[in-house]
């Protein structure tokens, strides 16, 4: 009898059909071996014709539901999936796509033309914070990080080519600017956050001093 590799064995005795884990109709399982050393690395459920039939029927039903979902709703769901699978292997393309899709999903609801703030890196809480700081940075300012500055220019052009336009009614004025802020991050992660400032991005500043509050410095 072949040895079962210690520590890596996976027991998947159920089949994922119609949104839940179910036992195969005959309850049979099958070992999966590593061809390099012939060790058993997993033991999985063996589907029968009836199980396959059920999975195909479910997929068919899902297709019918999915095709009647509006493009806007679909983009919402896909964006959510995108957020979950943003991994380092997708590198910078994953970041760009995520930002474009968030802006697209937001459409006219965020009162374009906007300032799109993008946070890249940090822990998840820091990432959302720097996205907010990016969105509130003065227009005309540029990211200190040269890679971030490059991204600002590229994303700004891409976003303004989408045709969302002022108030989401079409046209080429979707974002006044894209501002990027970056932070150091652990190499297993790739947190990206988008925070959008609406067109009435009024700015006011004050400084607390020993002589009182100074406004508009």
């Amino acid at each position, binding site marked *: 009898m072949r040895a079962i590799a210690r520590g890596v064995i996976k027991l998947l005795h159920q089949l994922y059909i119609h949104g839940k884990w179910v036992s195969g109709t005959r309850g049979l399982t099958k070992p999966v071996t590593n061809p390099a050393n012939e060790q058993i690395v997993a033991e999985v459920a063996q589907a029968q014709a009836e199980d396959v039939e059920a999975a195909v029927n479910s997929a068919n039903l899902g297709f019918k539901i999915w095709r009647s979902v*509006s*493009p*806007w709703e679909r*983009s919402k769901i896909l964006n959510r999936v995108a957020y979950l699978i943003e991994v380092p292997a997708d590198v910078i*393309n994953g970041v*760009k*796509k995520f930002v*474009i*899709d968030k802006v*697209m999903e937001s*459409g*006219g*609801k*965020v*009162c374009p033309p906007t300032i799109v703030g993008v946070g890249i890196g940090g822990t998840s809480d820091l990432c959302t914070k720097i996205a907010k700081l990016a969105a509130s940075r003065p227009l005309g300012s540029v990211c200190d990080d040269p890679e971030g500055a490059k991204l600002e220019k*590229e994303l700004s052009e*891409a*976003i303004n*080519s*989408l*045709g*969302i*336009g002022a*108030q*989401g*009614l*079409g046209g080429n004025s979707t974002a006044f600017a894209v501002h990027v802020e970056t932070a150091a991050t652990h190499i297993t992660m790739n947190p990206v956050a988008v925070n959008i400032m*609406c*067109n*009435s991005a009024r700015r006011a500043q004050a400084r607390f001093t020993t002589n009182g509050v100074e406004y508009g410095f």
Partner: protein
Amino acid sequence: MAHYTIEMPCSEEAIRELKIGDTVTLTGWLHGIRDATQIHMFDRGRTTKFDLNGHAVIHTAPNVRKVEPREDCPAGYEIVCVGTTTSMRMERFTAPLMLREGVRFIIGKGGLGDDSRDAFNELGGVYLAIVGGTAALETTWIEQITDVDMDDLNPESLWKFKLKEFGPLLVAMDSHCQSMYDEVQVSVEQNRVKALERMGIPV
């Protein structure tokens, strides 16, 4: 594309005349509603003393100042600033607003979705887009707060505004299943593919 000045309340015939791209200025009355107002009306069974039949509502929670009731502030509220909030959060209330209360105009920003488009078509209503972020201008179009209902929800009370000339506003969704937001959405999806390709990102 035509401009209309419409006195509130308004008939279904007048609504059916309106097409996307037209502009409208409202006179007479306007009612302010927001998330909480409609949650209480349609999820918690509350009713309003106002007759909204043929009337217009705007997605807002105005800034007001409580004052002693006087001639120009009969409800005891002085207007500070009336702005408009994003409509999409309140998408599910369009049909009940029209069915139960007879509302014909919804004023907001950012647009509404498929259910509203269908309700406008079946029941005779339109969505008027205001420019978000221009509350200061919007405030000058309003004469006074004449009355208020469900004021325990303040600032999300049901407000009754007396208008000067409220507009021009853009007909962005009409009663003929046309929506400017749908048109934009279709081209945006095509443009997205091109934008990603230009950046060398596989779609």
